[in-house]
């Protein structure tokens, strides 16, 4: 093989220029109406429009120059590196990992347990609220939901687009039952899980015969039905107004977080009143719930039922031929996945103090599914990393005050949150189609453990 020098390829610049101009023209066609023209309502509520040629020019130039640079410089560079790598041969996956990699899980767990006190000591009691609540609890809820959905999608290979329904069932179960019967969080948490599992079975029955995309659409429809019922059954659910004043969780009934209660946590310990203690308590609750989810999932994977799930994912017909009861296998996957969703839902209700159908839209299901897939399905660590990256990243955007200095005071980063989330989903998939963790340890192995590439397993076939 002779050394090839890519940047010297004749005609490369001409090709890059051509592609750049093409991309610019394409961008002009795409953005002319939507970016070049802004529609707005005037005082009489009539639509008016005005041009934004400057912004349009920026869009077109970015597209054109970006494409030019990619074709002219980035792509040859990448090709060269790939060639060099191919020449060097495929490196063996090294068996001995570093100390950090080896003890990654223990380190991560210790870091999580120490997170609230550390944040509190740095930012003070009140200042820690944002970090514990927005970054800690918010991300952990998604970790838990994604791990729950992972049972259905990643392990059993059943594509579920309506997972948020079980989250909603859990949240409303807690909100309604605590309101009607005054039961405590710790009693209702398992009940919410059981109810959600029950709904999982209800969904599971009709979809037993469906495969692939038919399954996807029915689960999506199921999620929408639950949401629409929550909106319209106003006698019970208060419709779009939602249920407010949902009871807070307590520390096993010993200490309460209600301000007026005699056994208030802060009062009992002589601490200044602050909502930060409740958040820190909730942080540990959701951390424990996550650990429970992970433990149960890992345990189940080693049990016959977990093996049956993975067999079902790989090949349903072979699975049936070998005498595995696919009905039971599918139903348990739905039920257990839904149960975790129900736990997360009742936790969500206790944390928020307010539930409304707004929180359970399809977008949430999509976000959870995206986290599962982006994390590399079946890999708990990968999913946790994906949740931190995607949810933490969008939360971070709320904090970016300095962007106002660049784009002017009218700039609100929150507006761009979901836009960037969508684009990030596409980018991650394009560059890492197998998710953040592309390899995994097999659950069953002969003689020795060998990491297998993620591309050896099929997923989401239904």
């Amino acid at each position, binding site marked *: 093989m002779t050394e090839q020098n890519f940047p010297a390829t004749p005609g490369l610049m001409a090709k890059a220029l051509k592609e750049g101009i093409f991309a610019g023209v394409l961008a002009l*066609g*795409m953005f*002319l*109406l*939507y*970016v070049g*023209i*802004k*529609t*707005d*309502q005037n005082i009489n*509520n009539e*639509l008016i*429009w005005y041009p934004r040629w400057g912004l349009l020019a920026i869009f077109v130039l970015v597209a054109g120059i970006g494409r030019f640079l990619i074709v002219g410089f980035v792509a040859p560079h990448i090709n060269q590196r790939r060639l060099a790598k191919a020449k060097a041969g495929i490196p063996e996956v090294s068996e001995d990992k570093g100390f950090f990699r080896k003890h990654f899980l223990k380190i991560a767990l210790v870091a999580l347990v120490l997170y609230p006190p550390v944040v509190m000591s740095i930012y003070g009691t009140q200042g820690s609220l944002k970090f514990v609540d927005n970054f800690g609890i918010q991300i952990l809820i998604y970790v838990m939901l994604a791990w729950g959905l992972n049972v259905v*999608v990643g392990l059993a290979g059943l*594509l579920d687009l309506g997972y948020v329904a079980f989250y909603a069932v859990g949240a409303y179960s807690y909100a309604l039952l605590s309101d009607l019967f005054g039961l405590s969080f710790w009693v209702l948490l398992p009940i919410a899980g059981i109810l959600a599992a029950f709904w999982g079975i209800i969904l599971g029955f*009709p979809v037993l*015969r*469906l*495969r692939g*995309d*038919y399954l*996807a*659409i*029915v689960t*999506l*429809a*199921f999620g*929408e*039905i639950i949401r*629409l*019922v929550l909106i*319209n059954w106003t006698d019970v659910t208060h419709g779009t107004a939602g249920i407010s004043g949902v009871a807070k969780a307590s520390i096993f009934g010993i200490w309460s977080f209600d301000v007026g209660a005699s056994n208030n946590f802060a009062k009992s310990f002589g601490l200044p009143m602050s909502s930060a203690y409740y958040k820190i308590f909730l942080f540990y609750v959701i951390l424990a719930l996550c650990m429970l989810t992970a433990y149960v999932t890992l345990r189940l994977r080693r049990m016959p039922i977990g093996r049956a799930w993975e067999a079902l994912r790989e*090949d349903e*017909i*072979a699975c049936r*031929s070998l005498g595995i009861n696919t009905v039971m296998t599918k139903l348990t996957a739905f039920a257990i996945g839904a149960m975790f969703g129900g736990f997360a839902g009742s936790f969500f209700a206790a944390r928020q103090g307010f539930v409304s159908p707004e929180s359970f839209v*399809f*977008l949430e299901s*999509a976000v959870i*599914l*995206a986290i599962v*897939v*982006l994390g590399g399905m079946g890999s708990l660590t990968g999913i946790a990393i994906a949740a931190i990256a995607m949810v933490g990243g969008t939360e971070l955007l709320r904090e970016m005050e300095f962007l106002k200095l660049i784009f002017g005071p009218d700039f609100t980063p929150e*507006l*761009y949150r*979901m*836009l960037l989330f*969508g*684009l990030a*989903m*596409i980018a991650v*998939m*394009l560059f890492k*189609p*197998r998710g953040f963790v592309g390899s995994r340890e097999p659950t069953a192995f002969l003689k020795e453990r060998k990491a297998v590439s993620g591309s050896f397993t*099929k*997923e*989401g*076939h239904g």
Partner: protein
Amino acid sequence: MEYFIQQLLNGLTLGSIYGLVAIGYTMVYGIIGMINFAHGDIFMLGGFAALIVFLILTSFFAGIPVALALLLMLIIAMLVTSLWNWTIERVAYRPLRGSFRLAPLITAIGMSIALSNFIQVTQGPRNKPVPPLINDVYHFGDITFSLKQLVIVIVTAVLLAVFWYIVHRTPLGRAQRATEQDRKMAALLGVDVDRTISITFVMGAALAAVAGTMYLMYYGVASFTDGFTPGVKAFTAAVLGGIGSLPGAVLGGLLIGLIESLWSAYFSIAYKDVATFAILAFVLIFKPTGILGRPEVEKV
């Protein structure tokens, strides 16, 4: 009886719009086997393109004939959404074609989120009302039939005829059907598979743009969230009819439109979408591949 016929007409109008969008879903699914979640948002983009063209036209040429304005709106909306869908396929779906099945689904969902938020950011979050284009209404006894309903049904019927002709009688259609049956074999026999798939996306987008324009005309309001609910219903229609089947998509669309309008007329308007989805679930339980879908042959 008059009331029933009235609802039937409304249902057919709505169903035509769903049917047009459903064709886009079903064709893309048939040819590359992916749920193009962003298709509903292409429909929304089409509506917005028509809205913006309408505004420009009425401000420059105040006395423009309605038919000409509508034609221009349709053509420009079709062109713009075609460009979008072509680019989307190129950027977000084609690189993942050899990848595992969920990868393009995730990029499609990401694209759907990105598109609706793109419109929210560039055009603002408020609903945009348009003055009614066509006001004429005909009365037959107690039944009223508006001209815009007639336009919607006729445009749909004409487009379907054109479309049917393209798919069944032209070399392009043959290439599409061949790619749908066996992509590898079609490529070996000289069909440019990439180009065929691109054209399929362009055709789907053009139909979605027509549907978007009709939707705007029918309801007189556009919003960046418009992609989701009609998109899901159109996808439901495609699945109900049997995904991959063109007549199935139209049939499914009409059925969904009828269920929706009849349910709101006779039962409760609040639960019309629940009824739609519940009927979908019931149909699929008894006929798991939809009404006109071919049963899949399972192989190990």
